[in-house]
């Protein structure tokens, strides 16, 4: 399941909905991304996430399918917010549930790496000296590349 929303989310409620009555699930791996107050040594007052409505949902749905194909999972959940967020606020929730922990962990890490490089979101950071679009990081490209040659 995927959702793109302005509203905050609550991990407890999300995980309950994902696993209720599904007693074959033994492991739930989750990741939450938060707005950090510092970026490249500058203190941020806020961050605005812009996205491409329509394409975002399409890319996240493709990512969900890819994860469910690659690993023996029960379910996958991605919730990604957009709009203006303050330091400490939640940006993204990524969850994979499975019988066994390894598949859940790997799928969750995989989805985050792909999100960072494929989902059409852009971050505008606001600091005392003005606002600036965040540049893509080489380390994120490297992180996602490790899944490409995965011959599973």
């Amino acid at each position, binding site marked *: 399941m995927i959702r793109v929303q302005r509203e905050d989310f609550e991990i407890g409620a999300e995980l309950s909905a994902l696993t209720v009555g599904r007693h074959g699930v033994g492991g739930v791996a989750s990741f939450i991304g938060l707005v950090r107050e510092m970026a490249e040594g500058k203190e941020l007052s806020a961050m605005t996430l812009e996205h491409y409505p329509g*394409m975002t949902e399409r890319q996240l749905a493709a990512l969900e399918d890819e994860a469910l194909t690659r690993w023996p999972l029960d379910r996958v959940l991605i919730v990604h917010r957009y709009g203006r967020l303050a330091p400490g606020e939640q940006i*993204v929730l990524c969850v994979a549930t499975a019988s066994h922990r390894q598949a859940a962990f790997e799928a969750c890490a995989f989805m985050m790496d792909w999100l960072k490089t494929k989902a059409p*979101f852009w971050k505008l950071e606001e600091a005392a000296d003005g606002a600036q679009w965040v540049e893509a990081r080489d380390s994120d490209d490297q992180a996602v590349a490790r899944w490409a040659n995965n011959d599973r």
Partner: protein
Amino acid sequence: MKVLYFAWLRSQTGLSEEDVDPPADVATVGQLMDWLAERSPGHAEAFANLEAVRCAVNQEYAKPDAAVGRDDEVAFFPPVTGG
């Protein structure tokens, strides 16, 4: 043809979207970028460094040699930074 701009391409063109009607010899993403760059100083700035521009045609990532037609939705944006 509907063209969308995101992040700093939106700031530089001053537009979040526009309807354009390029001539028939504009048949690929690359040719469209060259043609759009002529439309205003802001467009020229947005398309000055093509290495930094990504494209999607009908909401799927597309390379400069991908085909574009008049019924397509074409979006230009910087490398993504979500998550």
